């Protein structure tokens, strides 16, 4: 519960809340949403109908009046959702107005004057959760869906909302139940004529479950990138064309460049998308790795830039021989995920000298890309090289990823619990001890997909075995 409380704004319970549900700014339509016991009453005050009957789940065109002047404010489409059959579970009225920010703000002011209050962030969802209209996993999915910055992230959230994650985990729960049932039966029905429990079989099942969970949990690496975006940082000595590469990557993506909230236009980071994944590209211009500047800017800063990034792109000037600085920088970055872009392949004398950097860890030729920021040659290769390590679309399970840190954490705990049970089984510990970890695992999975009760387990036992001394 505390997780729910902290992830949503809290408010008093019984009042009616209002908020603009479409983004601020001019638009074709602006939707104002009103939820709570007074939603219908307040709507009536705005519409001024003597006989006011909104049919639930139907859109009705109405004139909205300004109570101060008595003049018509707007023609709006009103949709009424009757409690409990609404998103929040309360009475909800949505006003689809013309999308003028001035008009919308004025309308909300009027509604606020009718004994309602502005909804806090996430408060509609909180009410839905509280009224049992959503479960926690679905609420999380809605939050992710709204926050999704890219198509890929939105897709993941939608799939989670649709229960695909639960479906993915269901076979694991079933497998777990299949290990619990024989162990539990052998404890509870010792006088019954039950088949011998095969420790070997149970152990094998446990290990296959552990592997499967590991597999699913490992998608978090990519899943997190889908949700939060990928941080890629350009490094290289001066004048190798980093900024040109930066501009070229951005420019070729111009249509979907967005500002990063909180950063100014003159910052060195820009957002672009590749294959639907948000990439926060940072140019480390000004970061010079030369003997005299190191004193000023510090090795620390380089290291931090490297540590923060999910991917480092080392830019090298292919028209010149490899410099000692190139090698120094490479040494700094070679322990993390990185790729090498050899620039200026349009110039004469261009050589893929960078191949000399190929060391044991970095021996895949495709991680070295030959490009020209000037001509644009090789940029398709560069983009796919950026995405390559993240394997976004060719993962198993049809590309469903763990995108939520809470889910990832629960999967890790599930796996640990199963491992402890497997160890106990190996040591031939008594069943009640082996079962501790199995029940823990079931509970952790239940926190993602919904609870499994003792009754479910007993039912399974009675369906599997003939019990009854």
């Amino acid at each position, binding site marked *: 519960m505390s997780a729910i409380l902290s992830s949503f704004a809290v408010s008093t319970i019984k009042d009616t809340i209002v908020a603009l549900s479409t983004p601020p700014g001019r638009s074709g339509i602006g939707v104002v949403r009103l939820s709570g016991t007074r939603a219908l009453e307040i709507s009536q005050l705005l519409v001024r109908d003597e006989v006011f009957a909104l049919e639930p789940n139907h859109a009705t065109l109405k004139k909205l009046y300004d109570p101060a002047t008595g003049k018509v404010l707007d023609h709006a489409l009103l949709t009424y959702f009757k409690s409990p059959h609404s998103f929040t579970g309360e009475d909800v009225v949505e006003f689809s107005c013309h999308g003028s920010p001035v008009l919308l703000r004025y309308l909300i002011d009027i509604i606020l004057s009718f004994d309602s209050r502005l909804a806090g962030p996430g408060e509609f969802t909180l009410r839905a959760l509280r009224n*049992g209209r959503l479960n926690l996993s679905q609420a999380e999915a809605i939050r992710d869906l709204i926050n999704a910055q890219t198509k890929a992230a939105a897709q993941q959230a939608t799939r989670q909302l649709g229960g695909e994650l639960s479906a993915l985990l269901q076979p694991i729960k079933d497998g777990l139940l299949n290990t619990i049932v024989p162990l539990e039966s052998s404890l509870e029905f010792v006088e019954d004529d039950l088949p011998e429990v095969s420790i070997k079989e149970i152990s094998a099942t446990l290990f296959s479950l552990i592997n499967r969970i590991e597999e699913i949990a490992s998608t978090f690496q990519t899943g997190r990138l889908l949700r939060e975006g990928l941080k890629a940082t350009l490094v290289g000595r001066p004048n190798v064309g980093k900024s040109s590469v930066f501009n070229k990557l951005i420019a070729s993506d111009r249509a979907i460049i967005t500002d990063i909230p909180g950063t100014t236009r003159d910052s060195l980071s820009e957002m672009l998308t590749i294959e639907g994944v948000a990439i926060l590209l940072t140019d480390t211009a000004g970061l010079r790795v030369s003997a005299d500047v190191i004193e000023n800017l510090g090795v620390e800063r380089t290291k931090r830039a490297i540590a923060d990034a999910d991917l480092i792109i080392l830019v090298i000037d292919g028209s010149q021989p490899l410099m000692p600085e190139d090698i120094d920088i490479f040494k700094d970055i070679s322990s993390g995920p990185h790729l090498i872009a050899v620039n200026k392949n349009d110039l004469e004398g261009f050589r893929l000298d960078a191949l000399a950097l190929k060391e044991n860890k970095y021996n895949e030729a495709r991680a070295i890309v030959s490009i020209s920021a000037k001509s644009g040659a090789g940029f398709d290769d560069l983009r796919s090289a950026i995405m390559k390590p993240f394997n976004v679309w060719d993962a198993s399970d049809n590309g469903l990823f763990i995108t939520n840190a809470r889910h990832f954490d629960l999967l890790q705990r599930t796996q640990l619990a199963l491992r402890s049970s497997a160890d106990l089984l190996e040591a031939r510990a008594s069943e009640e001890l082996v079962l501790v970890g199995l029940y823990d695992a079931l509970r952790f999975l239940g926190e993602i997909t919904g609870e499994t009760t003792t009754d479910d387990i007993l039912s399974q036992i*009675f369906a599997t075995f003939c019990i009854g001394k």
Partner: protein
Amino acid sequence: MSFDEAFDVIVIGAGHAGCEAAAAAARLGVQTALVTLNLDLIGQMSCNPAIGGIAKGHLVREIDALGGIMGRIIDRTGIQFRLLNRSRGPAVQSPRAQADRALYRTEMRRTLEVIPNLHLRQGLVVDLIVKDSRIYGVELQDTRRLRAKAVVVATGTFLNGLIHIGRRTHSAGRAGEPASIELAESLKRLGFPVGRLKTGTPPRLDGRTIDWNVFEPQPADERPVHFSFATDKIEQPQITCFIGYTTGAVHNAIRANIHESPLYSGKIKGIGPRYCPSIEDKVIKFADKNRHQLFLEPEGHNTNEVYLNGFSTSLPPELQQELVRMIPGLERANIIRPGYAIEYDYVDPRELTPYLETVHIKDLFHAGQINGTTGYEEAGCQGLIAGINAALSVQGRERLRLNREESYIGVLIDDLIRQGVDEPYRIFTSRAEFRLALRHDNADARLSPYGQKIGLVNDSDWERFNQRRDKLVRLRSILESTRLRKSDAAYLSVSHALAQDLGDSITLIQLANRPNARPDLIKQLLPAEIQTETNMADLESVLADSLYSGYINAQRATFDRLHNHDSLRIPFNFSFREISGLSHEMIERLERVCPKTFGQARSIPGLTPAALSTLLVHLTLQQRTA
């Protein structure tokens, strides 16, 4: 209102729930009447003549630890004691004993008759006298009216009981006894939601007609583990039971005649227990099993009657006889009493508080099968709690409520009142979240202090409890401080026996937690003077504490995290109506109990998770703004 007699507490029914209820109430010092149809059948075991079993044995020891009587009576009348799951961990071991059915009954009646303030009355209760949502007494069929400040209804299978054998049915509470029909109607009139359940029992055989040599003997334990903490020694001579099997031919004959079974002809509407199925059910539902296990259990020292455990049936008697004779070893066997199925009314236990008092009628308590449970032990523990609380209520004292974290009794009551039942409810160890902590051998440590506080555990029992507790503490410190060293004579043989490297030295408690280190081995390593004064059971208790302590601590930590809102206070005069999103039903349930903390609200039966989270959000907000 005029009455023929007046009591503080009246208990209706003298089965396993009723006897515990009456004994507890009387021993707490209130005038108690135990009203039963037939005084000669007090404490009758209607079905299997056995007490205990996995989790059920735990219940009996908990009853004993609180000051109940079931444990003492089975210890005096048990003719075959066996500790189940002996090869497994101590938390899932449980004592079971087969009783001499007649002796058990006699001993129960004798025990009740010597309790001061306890009055036996024979009669059939036909009505509850209720006014303004308060109980005032009961009316008997012979027109006597008995006054009471509190009433415990413990009527077992008697409410609207209907026996099925083959195609015939007749009204009965149990074979040979009338059903309780007016009382069932009275409960319905009072507005209690009533459902229908079913149970069954196997035929009893004449032991002289059994070919015993065909069966596999199942002897009693050499070291019987008793139920009562007060028992020193089992005095009854121990008998052997026997195991046999049905055959494919028996199954075929049952299948061929399945239309004769009221279970399959659609006559029986009530739901039976899945863990105690009839032989018809076993054969039909598990068609691929080519044999089913049977237990032949002699019913006592002074009878030839043998209980054919595992062969519960409601097929016609002549067919039962035919089927029994198809079983190897029973070719000549005669049935003394045929098996039968019985349907009976139960009252939805969600109508109860954790004290087993009905929510709607003050000082009316329900205990045992009326609440949808099955089993003597399940009945007994409810009777005990209901009897205790009836007396405490009469005395105006604070009532007793057990939590699921500390007892199987708490688990059982909590399950009943929160979830209700859709089949006869039986206890299982897997129902307890804290099963590692709820051992049969530590029931005294868990519950005797409650028993002492309310006054049910008397001074001499309390003295014994303290002695045992102190002894265990001493033993534990000895086990922690005694080391087995490489230089010791025993070191080599122990290390060899366990096939493990034990290092330079190891404490006995560490040694005990090594795989295969059995308690008897540890005992041999104790200093000689300690060894003689230490009994095995005490040693096993101390070792079990140590074995599980790590797990239990981890589970407690999880539990505390999950329930860290439980201490959240609900302000005095808090208005639940002010919370939007709570249905009328939820508000009503909350207002009835008026919980003082969120933890108390959480334990209110029938409160939905959505309602609880709404309440929690509201309380958290209040706390933040306060």
